[in-house]
């Protein structure tokens, strides 16, 4: 016998109930720990991204216009009102694709909740505990809407269902109760964007703004609730079932809610490129670690992978953002320069002749058998054709950093934080930030932590 469909009332009530009861005392320790992990990882991604030239210019612009310096733009000394601070922070957070993701949603529920959480928590002067709880709840609800939504073909998840998670986080921090959160959710859904995946393929940096806009709109939705605005009864079903989405599965959205936590099923990474590239990159890294392969010995590389990844085939990306979506560039950059982090897609690697030459000899093919394994796995097989006539082969089915493969250890996350922040902050400040984030629930006023994020030594790439 099939289960009855979750009614509008049921899925919204379940979401609001879960969010309203998300207290550290009630949450499993592993969930709280996962919350701390996404926080430190998301913040390191923000601090890495905010130094990029357009980001620094945007931060300055948003601060210079504002007459409400209520929230910090992390990694700068600029302040602006909460929504636009969140816009800048979340945009920076996804810039290098180093923020935490979740493969079941196909998106990045963390950064939207984190950016909204930081900005509102500072404005409301709440404790680290309250902020952590709100971020965990926002992640959970956002991710559940995401995994239940089948977006229209051609859409990108950043800036779409992500607004719901940001709104839940902001609503909780503004004191919304269960009924209030249902209103906040319904207020948020129409504040989505008509996003386009093509932005990623072309390296259009507005893609990053999708995430920022969503974080800002989440805060706006919670502010609208406070101002007495009203919304339709089930905005999730309307927007994600028939407008931005072609199908919303309300049963899937609430499946095992409260016992299975999406925040525990996410991933963390040190690779600054599209997640769909990671298995190919890992397959290459494993071969190179096993045996030194001089670039000049490589005739060509064939990558057989799943359909979505096989599209990432630009052998001559025109800008750093497009390079992050190019399997040929990322693999060539690694083999030639041994770079896989932020530097792998830096402007200067685009002009490196050895990288360009090798990228032109990296060929992508879809393997339908590998496509069948998605979305549970994201497999890639690489075949290095050596000039000697020999082949080197390796296949990786699921990228590292997933909760169910090789999760990134806590120490590795902390090391990543150091790597991404030491260019802009004094070592002492970096260690203070790491220390506070390690027990963020004990920080009485989150402003204490946020102050550290603005104590920059030198703004990276400031125009």
């Amino acid at each position, binding site marked *: 016998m099939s289960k009855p469909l979750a009614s509008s009332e049921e899925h919204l009530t379940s979401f609001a109930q879960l969010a309203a009861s998300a207290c550290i005392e009630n949450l499993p320790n592993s969930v709280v720990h996962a919350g701390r992990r996404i926080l430190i990882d998301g913040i390191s991604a923000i601090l890495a991204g905010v130094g990029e*030239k*357009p980001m620094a*210019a*945007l931060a300055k*612009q*948003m601060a210079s*216009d*504002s*007459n*409400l310096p209520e929230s910090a733009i992390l990694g700068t000394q600029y302040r602006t*009102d909460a929504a*636009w601070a969140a816009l800048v922070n979340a945009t920076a957070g996804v810039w290098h694709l180093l923020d935490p993701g979740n493969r079941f949603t196909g998106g990045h529920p963390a950064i939207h909740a984190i950016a909204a959480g930081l900005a509102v928590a500072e404005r409301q002067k709440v404790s680290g505990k309250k902020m952590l709880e709100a971020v965990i709840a926002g992640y959970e609800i956002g991710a559940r809407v995401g995994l239940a939504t089948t977006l*229209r073909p*051609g*859409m990108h998840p950043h800036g779409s269902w992500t607004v719901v998670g940001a709104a839940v986080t902001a609503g909780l921090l503004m004191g919304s109760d269960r009924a209030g959160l249902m209103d906040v959710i*319904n*207020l948020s*859904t*129409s*504040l*989505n*964007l*008509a*996003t*386009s995946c*093509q*932005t990623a393929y*072309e*390296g*259009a*940096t*507005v893609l990053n*703004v*999708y995430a920022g*806009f969503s974080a800002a*709109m989440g805060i*706006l*939705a919670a*502010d*609208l609730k*406070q*101002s*007495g*605005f*009203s*919304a*339709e*009864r089930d*905005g999730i079903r*309307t*927007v994600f079932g*028939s*407008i*931005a989405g072609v199908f919303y599965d309300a049963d899937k959205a609430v499946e095992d809610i409260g016992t299975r936590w999406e925040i525990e099923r996410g991933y963390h990474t040190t690779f600054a490129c599209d997640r769909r590239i990671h298995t190919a990159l890992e397959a290459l890294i494993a071969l190179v670690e096993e045996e030194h392969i001089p670039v000049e010995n490589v005739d060509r590389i064939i990558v057989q992978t799943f359909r979505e990844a096989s599209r990432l085939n630009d052998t001559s990306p*025109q*800008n750093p953002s497009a390079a992050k979506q190019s399997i040929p560039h990322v693999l060539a950059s690694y083999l030639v320069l041994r770079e896989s982090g932020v530097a792998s897609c830096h402007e200067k690697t685009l002009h490196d002749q050895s990288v360009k030459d090798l990228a032109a000899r990296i060929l992508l093919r879809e393997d339908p058998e590998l496509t069948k394994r998605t979305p549970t796995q994201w497999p890639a097989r690489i075949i290095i054709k050596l000039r000697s006539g020999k082949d080197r082969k390796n296949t990786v089915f699921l990228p590292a950093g997933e909760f169910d493969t090789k999760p990134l250890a806590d120490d590795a996350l902390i090391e990543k934080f150091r790597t991404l922040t030491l260019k802009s902050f004094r070592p002492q400040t970096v260690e203070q930030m790491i220390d506070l984030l390690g027990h963020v629930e004990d920080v009485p006023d989150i402003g204490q932590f946020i102050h550290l994020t603005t104590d920059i030594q030198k703004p990276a790439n400031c*125009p």
Partner: protein
Amino acid sequence: MPGYDTVIQGLHRGPNAGSIKEDPVEQLADFVTHTSLSDIPEDVIDHAKRILMDTIGVILGGSTAPEASSMARRLGKPDEGVSTIIGHRLRSSAINAALVNGTSATWLDFDSGHRPPPGKPLLPAAHPPVHLVPATIAAAESLGSSGGQVLQAMVVGYDAGARIGLASRLRPAIHCHGTYHNISAAVAVAKLKGYDTQRMKRTIGLAAHLSMMPSFENAYQGGTVRNVYAGVGAAVGILASQLAACGFTPEFDAVGSVFGVVASPWLDPGRITEDLGRRYEITQGFIKAYPMCRFGHPAIEAAEGLLNRFDCNIQEIDEVVIDTFDWAATLNDRSPKKDLAAKFSIPWAVASMLVRKSAGAFDFSDEGLCDETVRSVAAKVAVREDPLYSSMTPAKRPARITVRTRSGRTFANEVEGSSGGPDAPLSVATIQAKFKSLADPLIGPQKAAAVIEMVDRFEDLTDIRTLTEILMPQTPGQK
């Protein structure tokens, strides 16, 4: 930021990029960049002035809504900020002023719209001014722009968004506020800032990417978040222009992706540039005589035309039938619970006209909704589609009212459309009277008259702030 545009232009004009002659968005960007006030015909400027006045009026009228007021207090400060929150003694950043003023502008559903010219399919009318005017005024204040600069920015901004709207067709469940007229707002702001063609094109692309896909259902259910769509759209206008200046990039064919695939399933690029510079879309707009969805206006005017002959007691009404075209027939809620829902209810509008002989701002307010007599008549109004009428759109948008009484008498009246559009424009006196009805209670008759005079000679205004200074409430501390 010198240097960015050259680099970005190089990046985005890849091997497959067409020349300016082949790329309608670039042609559009080129047109708006190079069109100045002296190029624009006088009658087009007059349209812009009427729309400016009308939109300021509806912003003032909507600014008193408790929700909009609360939003204003949240984001505004009495003395700080480059831009005015109209109707309040508050100032804010340009982006937040645009957000609040855009939200107030749609509150009464009294704002002007744009409809396709005859021969194009009838769609829910888009409302460029509630995106365009708040963004333009807020940005112009921050820049100290002149009246002439504002008018030229309004004309080209209106044109850009409306043309992309005409070339596409939004998916049916999407409310058009917060969509392609974000581009109108962005282009107007970019025009005020003097962007060149390439940066203008990027602004258009960025604004297209920041198009929302908001739900129409909020309007039907009276969700006031629907009023925020246009506010966000106005804010996007400011944001997109800022992003372009900061070096952010759109897709090469952003308009094609957003309005030819995602938010709209098809785009006819040829329509974007059809008669560009010869037909100004701002002249194709309508100014509303009634504060409700435009599709309901013919039904109101059909009822109004009946009043002279309707000589029986309201209690005698047994049944009212409205036959009208397809889109209008969806406005059939007989018992709207909230003011916004009433603005999408033909039964309520027609009942108000029959009972109170008016369909004005009060009649659609929450207070007006408490009238039990109107409510009892609205419950008797059936709204039906007449396929013949549907086939006559968009050239005509007919409605027929038939009232049957308990004693068996029948009263009927038919109209082919409603006033306010290019085919039956409201007189300047009517538009001014509408403005005064909205502005007088808030800023006082003297200032309202001064606004009318100032807008009439707007080309002579050296600084927009002369206008915005008088758009604050009459009494200090009143709000």
